[in-house]
Every structure is written in C-alpha cells, then in structure tokens.
C-alpha cells in the first residue's frame, strides 16, 4: 500500500491530514513551528512598542499622523475573508472534493494578493507623503520591520499555496499531499492571527495615540 494510492469518496479517511505517520509528524512539527513563530512575532511586537513614535525630531510623522482607518479596514477585511475561504478549502478537502478545494484556495490566493497590493501601496504612500522610511527613525525601522515581516509571511504563504496547487493540479488528492494542503492552511490562519494583532496594536492603537 502506498501513500499515492488512489482514493474514492468511500476510502478517503476522516482526517486525511493525520492519516499517516508522516502526516502526523508534519502536523505536529508545524504546530511547534507556529509556537516558535509566536515568540518571533512577540519579539517584533515588543520592539515596535518600545520604539513607537521614537523619532529624532519633531518634524517627523508619528503613528497618529500616518495611519488611516479606511485603508486598514479594507486590508483587514481582505485578509480575514481569506481565512474563511481557506477554511472552505479544507472543508472540501475533507470531503474529497478536489476541484472545489482548488477553487476556494484560488479565492484565498486572490484575496491574499489584494492584501499585499494594499500593503505595498500603503508603504509607498508613507514614504512619499510623510518621508517616513525604514531609515528615517527608529520608529520607521520598527514599523516596517514588523509589518514587513508579516507581509513577507503573506507573500511566502501565497507562493507556497500556489506551488501546491500547481504541483497537484493534475493528480488530485491523496494522502501524500492532503497534509501539505492542511499545513499550508494552518500557516495561512496563523498569518491572520498575527494580522489581528497588527491592526489592533499598530494601527488602531496608533490612531488612538
């Protein structure tokens, strides 16, 4: 019996993401990795909080000058919705509905790109309208590093999901790739978790002052 064994609706296991030992290992290992990522992002958040509004002179923009609600709100909606679409994808994965899974993953990817686009626009805007750059102050460095790290995670997640979709487009679901899809979706949710804190701590709290 082989992991690439062809499945039918009848033979597809209830928890394909944990059906083999490899899958179980992957599942657990990935969760531990997320535990480490939690500390990673906590370090970045902590640094940001320590350096928030630390600028060399009074001409430079502070958090409350920079951020605007509509932009952040749109970005948040895009990313939160992408979480739901990826949940749908996993729902179809469990039901062995490969095409539908791909569809929902596709949607997730689109939303992710939308989010990234907004972020790029936003950074560009700060640089040109406020001269708030990566090197203009400790505040600038901390802001771009925290938000940029998250953005890089989004970008990597997109690459990952696209690769998975492309690689498996022809061969459908099996017990070798199902855990991969599952783990990628965990990663995507984790990115969302981080964003919830970013929009709260960086943007909303920044606007409050």
């Amino acid at each position, binding site marked *: 019996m082989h992991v690439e064994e062809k499945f039918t609706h009848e033979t597809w296991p209830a928890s394909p993401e944990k059906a083999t030992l490899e899958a179980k290992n992957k599942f657990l290992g990935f969760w531990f990795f997320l535990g480490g990522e939690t500390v990673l992002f906590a370090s970045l958040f902590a640094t940001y909080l320590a350096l928030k509004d630390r600028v060399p002179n009074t001409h430079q923009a502070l958090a409350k000058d920079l951020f605007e609600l509509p932009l952040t709100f749109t970005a948040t909606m895009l990313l939160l919705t992408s979480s739901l679409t990826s949940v749908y994808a996993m729902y179809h994965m469990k039901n062995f509905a490969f095409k539908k899974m791909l569809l929902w993953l596709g949607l997730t990817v689109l939303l992710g790109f939308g989010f990234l686009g907004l972020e790029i626009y936003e950074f560009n805007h700060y640089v040109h309208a406020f001269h708030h750059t990566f090197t203009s102050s400790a505040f600038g*460095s901390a802001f771009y590093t925290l938000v940029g790290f998250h953005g890089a995670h989004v970008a990597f997640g997109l690459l990952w999901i696209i690769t998975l979709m492309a690689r498996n487009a022809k061969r459908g679901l099996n017990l070798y790739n199902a855990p991969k899809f599952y783990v990628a979706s965990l990663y995507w949710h984790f990115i969302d978790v981080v964003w919830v804190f970013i929009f709260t701590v960086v943007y909303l709290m920044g606007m409050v002052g």
Partner: protein
Amino acid sequence: MSTYAKKQGFGATLWDFLTTVDHKKIAILYLIAGGFFFVVGGLEALFIRIQLAVPNNDFVSAGLYNQIMTMHGTTMIFLAAMPLIFAFMNAVMPLQIGARDVAFPFVNALGFWLFFFGGVFLNLSWFLGGAPDAGWTSYASLAVASKGHGVDFYLLGLQISGFGTLIGGINFLVTIINMRAPGMTYMRMPMFTWATFVTSALILFAFPPLTIGLVLMMFDRLFGAKFFEVSMGGNTIIWEHLFWIFGHPEVYILILPAFGIFSETFAIFSRKRLFGYSSMVFALVLIGFLGFMVWAHHMFADGLGPVTNAIFAVATMAIGVPTGIKIFNWLFTMWGGSVKFTTPMLYAVAFIPSFVAGGVTGVMLASAAADYQYHDSYFVVAHFHYVIVGGVVLALLGGTHLYWPKIFGTMLNETLGKITFWLFLIGFHLTFFIQHFLGLWGMPRRVFTYLPGQGFETANMVSSVGAFFMAAGVIVLLINIITTSVKNVRVGNDPWGDGRTLEWALSSPPPFYNYKQLPLVRGLDAYWIEKMEGKKGLTPAEPLGDIHMPNSSFLPFMMSFGLFVAAFGAMYHGEHGTWAFPVLFLGLAITLGSMFLRSVKDDHGFHIHKEDLMDDDEKGVKA
C-alpha cells in the same frame, strides 16, 4: 573509524556522509564538526591565557585580543558545545525511544548543514578582514560601532546556524512525541530523552528572540535601520533584552543534556535505577520553565531599577532548588549502588563537586546588590566556566567515552581515558578557581592586558598554566581516538556490561534501520528489565515486516550552501554592489531552487524487505 567507512572507497564514503539522512551518521557529522570547533575554540582560549599570563603582554594586540575573546565565546557556545550536544541527541535519543529514525530525517540533515555552513562562515572572518570583536554578547552600542565586517560575520553566521538549531529542536520534539516504541510512555523515557525533550522546547522558544535580535542588528549595520541608534530614537537595551531572553535559556540548553548524559552514566555504573526518577523529570521541566523568567540577572548593572532587579534576583535564586534536587538524586543513585569507576563514571563523579561549586557562585551572582561587584569581573568568568566546563564539557567528554562504542563499534582506551580525565580535571580547577579571586580583587573581564602593581600577576600565571593541562588532556584524547580507531577492536551490544536502556540492546553500531522489529517496552530501563528476566534481547512489539526508510539527499547540503553564498552578497552589498547583489541572488536562488526541487519531486523513500532482514540476522536485533 567504522566498518562501513572501511568497506567503501573514500569518495563513496564522503558522498555517503554528504547526502545521509540517517540520524546515526548525522550524529557522527555533528561529532566531527563540533569536535573540530572545540579544538579551534580551545586554541583561542590558549591564546587568551598566553596573552594574560603576564602583565602588559604583547603576544596579541588589543584589537586582535577582542576578536579572539569574542570568537572563543561564540565558537565554544554555538559551534562546539551545542553541536556536540546535538551529536549525542542524534546518536542516542532515537535508539532510546525505540525508533527507526527521527521524525524528519531530511530536516535533520538540513539542520546539520545549516549549522556547519554558519560555523564556517563565521570563522572565515579570520581570513576576510577580521573577526567579530564586540564580545559573544555583541552589545548593541559597541557592535553597531564596530568597524569592518567582523560583527556582520557574527550576525549572518549565527543566523544561519541558528536556523539549523531551531529546526533540529522541532525535529526532536516531534520524534519524542510521535515515534516512541509501543509501551514507551512518557514516564518510562530514559532521562537523556527527557533532557532532549525539555532542551528542544527551550530551543523552540529561545531561538526566535535571538533571530529577531540578529535581524534587527543586521538591518542596522547593513541596511541603515535605526533600532540601536540613540540619536535617531533607537535603544540599545532592546538588544540586551533580546539577547538574554535567548541567552539565559541557552545556558540551560547546554546544561540539561549534560544532566541527561550524567543521569544515564550514574545509573549504568552504579547498577541502580535512577533515584527519584519522577522528581528528576519534574526538576528538569521546572528548570526549563524558570529558565525563561530570569534573564535580566545579566543586566543587574544596567540600571533597570530596584524593583526589576529584586524580582529577577529572587526568581534566579529559585533555580537553585530544582537543580539541588537533581544533585541529591544523583548522589542517592550511587548510594547503595555498586559503583564502578570507568572513565565515563569518573567524569560523572567529578562533575558533582565541580558543578555545585559553579552553581552556588551562580546563586551568589543572583544576589543583585552583590552582583554590582561581581558583574563583568573575572568572578563571572570563573562562575560560568565552572558550570560550563565543570558541567557541559565534562559531560561531553564523559559522553564521548560512554557512547563511543555505540557510535563507532569500538572502545576508547580506558587508561588513556583516565589520563585525559585527570589532566583535564586538574587543569580545569587550576585555571578557573583562582579566577574567582581575580574578580574579587577588582579585575574586570574582557581586558586584553592588565597593568602591574594591582596584585593580579601570580593568579593569572597560575590560571594560564592550568589551561595547558587541559590542552594536554585534549591531546591525549585525540591520541586515544586515533590509536583505538586504527586497532578497531569490535565490541558487542552492551560493551559496558551494565547498559539499562534500549540502545544497549542493539549491535554497536546499530544497523541503519535500528530495530528490525520495534521493541515492546515494559517499564523504565527497558533493556535492564529484559536482562534481569534472563532474556538476551528485547521483546518485539510487531511481527517482522518490511521497513520503510527515507532516501538520502544532497538537497540539505545545497540549501545550506545557498544561504552561505547569499550571506556574502548581503554582507558586501554596501561597498561591492556590482558583484554582491548577483551573489546574493545566486545564493538565494540555490536555496529556493533546492527547496522547490524538494517540494515538486516526490520522495517516498524505499522499503527494506522482510527477506533481506532475515538474511543479516547476526547483525540485527535478536528478537
């Protein structure tokens, strides 16, 4: 050194090791690389001691001294002690839990190569314009101001090898949770496995802050960020916190596996089960937990305020309690036992007073108000060499003797082993005991020289002499390794005669699939139980069947090599943009390309068939 190394040509063996994903071979790689870096770090230590032997010495210049001192600390901690610990974890832990390999063999190899290339990168700094010179702690204000690329080597090198350590930690965690043999409950796991587990958890939570610290400083130094630039709103204390949030758990990452090795040693050579097993486990977990709550004791003199200092002082002292529990449990393991003083046991026995001496000076340091006097003086140097050399290094040397037959199938010579032991032990105390007093007499650490007339002369000379005893001990060990490898007398499964845990039931070295049939574990010290019931081997938990094994792969090497190349590009992009950027992208392309290959090329491994297993019966587990 080992059977399979002899049977093949050199090229084939080399290729075998470059592509292996077998935890036992990866262990050998860690052992060799870590051993090499230990000698490098030791030579640096000797240079330090030569320079400080007499006042106003000019053996090395001030700048060079700072580089040697920094590289000594960095090399010893990151490139010698940690990899050697990983060597034993890899060699022993999967065998101890009755597994055929770790959870992610590919990742295991990747972890090694990342460490290796990170270490090589760091040490290339010697030849490329100077090594880092801001201390192993690389405090921000000095490190950012440091000229040349030394500190960049530190940042990038540690970043690369740090990734290797992190994924190694995750790998061990998953292995221990998912791959235990039937019947191996958590409370039946050997102590070394427990130590591996807690250590890996510490790695998982301690390395991310270091990663971030390194990233921030790299951004400052190479890309113009302002995290640590005070005039631009930056704050250097951020680095100190991030470093020590990592740094303090790091010292327990070093010592807990050492505790693990000694726990095994005491039980084996006392012929007695570990006294107070469950409280040992409890103490281990508690030390791990408390380890994250005390880091600011390295910053008592920073001016964080009395409230902070008082809280961290008390929290730090608390660690003495679980550590004490372990010490007394070891003593009582020997109590009533039948203690045989083999070389590994000598190390274990010598460890107790040495480590206790170092531990109690730790508690003295924890007394914040008094630490204002000790801090950054030779008293601290004495403290941490007592715990590190008297704890970690003794464990590594003892572990080398203990597990050598299991790893290579031949014993180290006991007489030479004991000579090494005595030379090293005497040298160690000679070098570091007197340093307590140097510190108390007012000698700061990290000084490239000292002026006459301050009363430091004699003590420093004594200390330097001691270092050469240690060096002599290490040289005898190297001779021991070479001569016994040449003789290559093969040994059986349980060469010490008193093995208690599963690994001693396997041949030495074990077959590459470890267990022909997974063993059934019926209690703590599984192999001992079988022996006491008069059985020769283990009770199998499954019928003989095909064994699934992972394929070897060259990709881990390539992925790490790519990062190694990219690091040069990142470092030189400031002044050599023309070639540095292409190099950066080339390196990243190699890494990402290898990752891409890995993910699109399915790798399902292969099966060893039942029939083949039956053939080499004489080598495998007698089940």
